[in-house]
């Protein structure tokens, strides 16, 4: 007798509701990666989510976790407080590039440098998505946004910030990796990286950081498929994928 089995098993922690994200936005995939990682590690009941400002501000609607919404950029500071008050809980912040690399630069740097035992998922789409596509610190040179209509130029605005490299150079960091979710191969790698980041936190060895390169088809003025291709052609050459720090792997050796 033939039996039909369901291949797709969406984790329970992902709520069953339509998201507010634009078609083709990678936030949905990043949410699922986080949900799968904490489900796999059995951390669902003790995870506290620190939301940030940006398109992902409503993440508490899509992940059924205890959540705190923090002021713009201050998610790592709020996460520090939560983790110090409840060291038995797993605490992670989910931030965009406008939030983490711009207004929240001080918080993330010091949080990472202190080696706070939290995890940060950083979704980099090179633009301020929610507010209407303004230039972010990660906007690529030549990319047109509403605040640099002629394209970002190096002379005036400088080069885009590579966050993962900076974070990896800090002392308190246990894990730093940049991943993309534009194709299946990269999604599988991203899944492993997110799981490892949470694993680092369970082992209490320091700050863990995962940068996810994501699309913003609406503000890039592209179709979702074109935007997905841009990750490969423009973003990955400037933001190289890979692991920049992994204390856990070093210890195993």
């Amino acid at each position, binding site marked *: *007798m*033939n*039996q*039909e*089995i*369901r*291949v*797709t098993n*969406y984790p329970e922690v*992902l709520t069953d509701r*339509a*998201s507010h*994200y*634009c*078609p*083709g*936005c*990678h*936030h*949905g*995939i990043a949410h*699922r990666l986080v949900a799968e990682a904490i489900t796999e590690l059995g951390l669902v009941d003790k995870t506290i989510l620190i939301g940030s400002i940006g398109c992902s501000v409503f993440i508490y609607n899509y992940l059924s976790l205890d959540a705190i919404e923090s002021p713009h950029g201050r998610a790592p500071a709020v996460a520090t407080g939560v983790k110090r008050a409840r060291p038995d809980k797993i605490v992670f912040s989910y931030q965009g590039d406008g939030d983490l690399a711009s207004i929240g630069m001080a918080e993330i740097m010091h949080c990472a440098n202190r080696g706070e035992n939290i995890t940060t998922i950083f979704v980099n789409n090179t633009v301020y998505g929610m507010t209407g596509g303004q230039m972010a610190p990660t906007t690529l040179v030549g990319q047109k946004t509403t605040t640099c209509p002629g394209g970002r130029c190096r002379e005036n605005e400088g080069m885009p910030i590579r966050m993962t490299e900076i974070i990896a150079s800090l002392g308190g960091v246990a894990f730093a990796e940049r991943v993309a*979710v534009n*194709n*299946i191969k990269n*999604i599988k790698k991203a899944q492993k990286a997110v799981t490892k980041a949470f694993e680092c936190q369970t082992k209490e060895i320091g700050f863990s950081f995962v940068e996810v390169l994501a699309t913003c*088809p609406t503000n890039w003025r592209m179709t*979702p*498929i074109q935007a*997905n291709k841009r990750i490969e052609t423009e973003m990955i050459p400037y933001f190289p994928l890979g692991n920049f720090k992994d204390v856990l792997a070093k210890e195993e050796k």
Partner: protein
Amino acid sequence: MPSRVEFREDRCKGCLLCTEVCPTGIIQQSNRFNQKGYKVAEVTAEMMTECKGCAFCAMICPDYAINVFKTESAKGGAA
């Protein structure tokens, strides 16, 4: 029918990322609109026989709109 995919048409936003990753290329844009006005993705009944059940489409779908089912025979191996 060895495998099949099911689209939740109320959730599909017609981004068509699934069409890019399908190794057999059987997913396409339909002519139907859902309630929100997105042209949803579909696999026609004839094309469905080619589905391998790899679930790549579900893996890249940002809106969790795809469910994949696989049928295996009692002896193991795909039917």
